[in-house]
């Protein structure tokens, strides 16, 4: 295990953890319910750590990515249903990320949102064409570390640490009306979905194959999942806590993604704002790349095409054409004029519906001793895996009713 590689891997995971949905729901959760939803972030982070570690381990041992194995395990029909559902979910998520990036550029440069969406899509396509996998992953992930300004802002905003720590304890705030209770439930489901997005597992396991992981990388996989995602989640919690301190008491609903940047602007002024917007820009742009590549990985793996960005783009032609088309399709969704926040909500809703289909085959495969040998799930991972699987099933059933009953968490 190379310590430099490991550190870079962990830092990349930290910088790449937050995406547009986490950004929006963390800020809104803090402003609406104070610190009471911190535990949902912590709880969901354990879930994504468990499944990411599993997918990385399967990739390292079987040397096959999740979607190859998923089709083998689920069969053609159910596999095709999973593929179509996850492509729709990832496409909407990708459109939300492109819209989010265009908004950041609109705030930073004052240029037209539509123009920025087009320019950014072209820039993202060029960056994937030019850069090999490791550079793509590192560049966006490491530049996303500008978001550490949110953690610094928490100190500068005189955070009430005891109350923040209290937010880690599972709770439902007292004295909520039925409407508010439903809204709290909707936020819980949305945060679980935003943190455990299916694209993260597809991208992570395919990345393991791109980097040619083998059984010797099992420890690197475990540390990257636990530390990278664990520390990344602290940034999301910092956004939530800053929002609870600054926006909640002022009755500000940070309903647009840029509002979160004010959390750093208030204590640090202009430079705080610029660092926050830059961090958000690279984190969200990185998520756009991840969602689009995750979609292309899934399609290529399902049909057995050559895939991967460790090859030159023309060496995996159908894969390359697929991610270019998917980027253009996501841009087309943005150009219809649909609001970024609506896209974020749809992305979260579709994702939670796909999550059980994504995680079940992974859980079965990683626990199969015939297939994984001594690297099969241990008792703790097995228990945690099934526990989180049933949690996402419950969340998937509750998602649509809660969305309609609360008008997307707006009460």
């Amino acid at each position, binding site marked *: 295990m190379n310590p430099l590689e490991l550190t870079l891997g962990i830092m990349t995971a930290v910088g790449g953890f937050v995406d547009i949905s986490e950004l929006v729901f963390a800020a809104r959760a803090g402003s609406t319910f104070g610190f009471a939803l911190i535990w949902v972030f912590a709880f969901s982070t354990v879930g994504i750590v468990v499944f990411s570690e599993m997918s990385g381990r399967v990739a390292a041992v*079987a*040397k*096959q990515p999740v979607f*190859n*194995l998923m*089709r*083998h395990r689920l*069969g*053609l*029909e159910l*596999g*095709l249903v999973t593929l179509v559902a996850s492509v729709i979910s990832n496409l909407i998520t990708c459109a939300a990320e492109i819209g989010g990036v265009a908004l950041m550029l609109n705030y930073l440069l004052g240029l037209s949102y539509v123009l920025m969406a087009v320019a950014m899509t072209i820039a993202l396509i060029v960056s994937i*064409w*030019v*850069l*090999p996998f490791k*550079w793509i992953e590192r560049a966006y992930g490491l530049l996303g570390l500008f978001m550490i300004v949110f953690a610094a802002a928490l100190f500068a905003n005189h955070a009430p640490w005891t109350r923040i720590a209290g937010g880690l304890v599972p709770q439902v705030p007292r004295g909520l009306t039925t409407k508010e209770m439903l809204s709290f439930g909707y936020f819980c489901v949305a945060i679980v979905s935003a943190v455990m997005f299916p694209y993260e597992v597809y991208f992570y396991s395919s990345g393991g194959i791109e980097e040619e992981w083998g059984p010797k990388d099992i420890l690197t996989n475990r540390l990257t999942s636990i530390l990278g995602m664990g520390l990344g989640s602290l940034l999301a919690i910092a956004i939530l806590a800053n929002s609870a301190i600054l926006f909640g008491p002022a009755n500000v609903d940070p309903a647009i993604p840029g509002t979160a940047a004010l959390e750093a602007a208030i204590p640090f002024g202009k430079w705080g704002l610029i660092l926050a917007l830059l961090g958000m820009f690279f984190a969200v742009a990185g998520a756009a790349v991840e969602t689009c590549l995750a979609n292309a990985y899934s399609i*290529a*793996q*399902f*049909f*057995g*095409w*050559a*895939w991967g960005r460790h090859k*030159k*783009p*023309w*060496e995996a*032609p*159908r894969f*390359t*054409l697929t991610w270019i088309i998917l980027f253009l399709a996501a841009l087309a969704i943005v150009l219809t004029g649909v609001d970024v926040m609506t896209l974020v909500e749809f992305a979260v809703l579709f994702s939670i519906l796909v999550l059980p289909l994504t995680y079940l085959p992974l859980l079965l495969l990683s626990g199969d001793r015939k*297939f994984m040998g001594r690297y099969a799930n241990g008792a703790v991972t097995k228990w945690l895996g099934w526990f989180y699987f049933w949690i996402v099933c419950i969340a998937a059933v509750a998602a649509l009713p809660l969305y309609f009953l609360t008008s997307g968490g707006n009460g």
Partner: protein
Amino acid sequence: MKPDGAIKLVSELLDLPLIDSNGRYCGIVDDVELKGQAGKPLRLEALLVGPGAYSGRLPRWAMSLLRMTAGDRLTRVPLGQIRTIGAAVELKVPGEKLGLRKTEDRVEGWLPKRGAL
């Protein structure tokens, strides 16, 4: 061989990825071709690859939709061309030799071959 041996082999083969002798993915085992007669053991003859092999595995409406979008190409991979069967099926020869890379090669012609690091 146990009574369920052959059936188990088929079920374990279906939907496995194919990797050619150059280490490139070149399809999925979409169906298998068996040879034999009633009352006698069946023998695996070839793997079938491509959307044409989906008929019988998908509902009719899905199959017509697929035929419209992906065609009904079908490539036969004789058993003798298989090196190993594990988490993937490894072939003894490059995919081109079996006609498994026709679409990849056609799409490759559409892409510019420069600018990537």
